């Protein structure tokens, strides 16, 4: 086993650092590790792209599949792992260099963030259903704590809500896993995929619905996503950036991955996923229209984009799936930017309410300018990456002569423009910016460039991917292939062709 070629590092290293960090309280020098590890993993992930393109890396733990647990690093998983490491590195750097909030300083939040990374990576990498449940709970628990870490009333309320609804999701998913094991005697995803067809149809449906509800709650799909705005509102924006940029994406990937693997009939899977995606998209965008709190508005917008990504994945075509991966990346970039901007604003103003932010653009030109860039990227306006990813998805639908998703996506984008531009307009309102200037401006020192560096890096990446999308084209197409090619996955894991 070579050091550099093992997917297990993506899980083990953050966990190791997280759990061992209380041991080095005395040696502050080692704290740099907390920031260095995600960065190192990001570099490792980037270095692995060429290898994984040849063949997926499979890391078996003790016993070979289908009996033992294994980690499966294919192009799709690698893309997401790289994205997660990037997101964590970025948010960690942002917090490292200037978190004024005491509860986000020091070791504790970093421990939790590293656990979140381990959970997210594990969700994407694992090839075993029960292991998936374990990672779901690891990611969940660290997310609950991160939500509540501010330890005041709204944060605790949000954390409790998240914990309750998240546990319900966990129970549903566990029940689905249990039923699968009882029916097939397998937990390995590839083996389950082969055996699933032999389960009685009614039981198939029950398992599917249980898993769908469990993962649907976690990945914020429409009839199950009512908790999202409250939780996003209650937690710190920098943390929410990770929820929106990392956690949801991991669950969404798991959902699509399982749907592709386990559902024999792609037509049914397509109907289900696309309906859910379309519903999530429209409902969230409409509901966002009347939000007067920035974090809530961003939460709804995040929901809408998740719906769009699911709509594109759910079509189960290579072209839209590649576009969906692209959109997933560009949405992560944009939402990281927007939530970090919210975090920056919250350091200076008391409230992120629309009325309180009137005219903020004239007081904090750079911060609000970054908000505008992020909003433009979310809206899919060129030359930012959001446009290219949407175009990719749309042309995929057009090439397949399916026009209703195109209409839906465009209408949703128009509604989205309705509220984002309302915010932009208010942020630049000429009205006396008294509400903004009165609050905390005087006592906070101006932010250094180090604070803005992560944000500017995000803007640079959005521009790069928007102008030159071909730089990641290969990775996206490989990822889409790896996600959709069920037989290939089963073969690579079990060494036999699927029936």
């Amino acid at each position: 086993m070579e050091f550099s070629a093992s997917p297990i590092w993506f899980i083990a290293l953050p966990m190791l650092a997280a759990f061992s960090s209380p041991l080095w309280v005395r040696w502050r020098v080692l704290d740099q590790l907390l920031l260095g590890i995600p960065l190192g993993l990001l570099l490792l992930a980037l270095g692995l792209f060429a290898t994984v393109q040849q063949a997926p890396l499979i890391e078996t733990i003790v016993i070979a599949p289908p009996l033992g647990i294994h980690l499966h690093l294919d192009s799709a998983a690698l893309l997401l792992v790289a994205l997660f490491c990037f997101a964590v590195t970025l948010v960690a750097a942002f917090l490292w260099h200037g978190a004024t909030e005491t509860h986000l300083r020091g070791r504790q939040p970093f421990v939790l963030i590293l656990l979140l990374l381990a959970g997210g990576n594990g969700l994407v990498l694992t090839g075993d259903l029960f292991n998936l449940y374990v990672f779901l709970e690891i990611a969940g628990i660290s997310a609950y704590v991160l939500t509540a870490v501010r330890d005041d009333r709204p944060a605790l309320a949000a954390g409790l809500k998240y914990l309750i609804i998240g546990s319900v999701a966990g129970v549903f998913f566990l029940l689905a896993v249990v039923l699968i094991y009882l029916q097939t005697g397998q937990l390995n995803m590839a083996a389950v995929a082969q055996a699933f067809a032999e389960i009685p149809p009614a039981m198939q449906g029950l398992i599917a619905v249980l898993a769908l509800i469990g993962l649907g709650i976690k990945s914020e799909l429409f009839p199950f996503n009512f908790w999202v705005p409250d939780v996003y509102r209650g937690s710190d924006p920098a943390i929410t950036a990770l929820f929106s940029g990392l956690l949801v994406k991991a669950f969404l990937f798991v959902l699509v991955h399982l749907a592709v693997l386990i559902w024999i009939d792609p037509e049914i899977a397509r109907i289900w996923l696309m309906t859910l995606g379309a519903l999530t998209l429209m409902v969230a965008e409409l509901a966002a229209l009347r939000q007067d709190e920035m974090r809530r508005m961003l939460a709804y917008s995040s929901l809408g984009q998740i719906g769009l990504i699911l709509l594109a994945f759910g079509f189960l075509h290579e072209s839209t799936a590649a576009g969906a991966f692209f959109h997933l990346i560009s949405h992560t970039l944009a939402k990281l930017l927007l939530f970090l901007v919210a975090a920056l604003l919250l350091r200076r103003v008391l409230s992120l309410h629309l009325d309180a932010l009137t005219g903020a653009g004239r007081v904090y030109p750079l911060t609000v300018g970054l908000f505008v860039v992020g909003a433009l990227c979310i809206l899919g306006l060129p030359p930012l990456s959001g446009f290219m990813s949407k175009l990719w998805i749309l042309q995929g639908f057009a090439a397949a002569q399916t026009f209703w998703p195109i209409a839906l996506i465009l209408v949703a984008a128009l509604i989205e423009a309705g509220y984002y531009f309302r915010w932009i307009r208010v942020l630049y309102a000429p009205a006396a910016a008294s509400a903004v200037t009165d609050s905390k401006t005087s006592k906070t020192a101006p932010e250094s460039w180090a604070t803005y560096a992560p944000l500017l890096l995000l803007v640079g990446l959005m521009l790069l991917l928007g102008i030159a999308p071909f730089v990641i084209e290969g990775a996206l197409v490989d990822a889409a292939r790896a996600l959709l090619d069920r037989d290939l996955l089963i073969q690579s894991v079990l060494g036999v062709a699927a029936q």
Partner: protein
Amino acid sequence: MLELLDWLDRPSVLHGLHLVGSLTLFVIGLYGLLGKRHLLKILMSLALMELAVNLLFIALATTSGETAPILSDGLTAFTGMADPVPQALILTAIVIGMAVLALGVSLAIRYHRLSASADIRALADAQD
């Protein structure tokens, strides 16, 4: 009487009973989750639901007469043993469930200290 016991000992009957029992437990948990307002009761209900799932798994994965899957004096072959996987899994699930429960309770206590309320409806009132 013995016949009845024998009948009860048949795997299908036993599994049926376990199924009914754990589903009842699950529904009780669900009722508590939906009907009760105190945060601790909600968390207890969650624990109950998880317990029901665990029970279901363990019960349905074994048949009476099987022994624990451990080799020891006199047991030198893997025959007549229960499937070890569910037990291992359920142990993990119990640990996870306990961790979530502990976290939930501690959050609830913190919340109660700050707001003097342990009502789940009060959580919904958190406004902007």
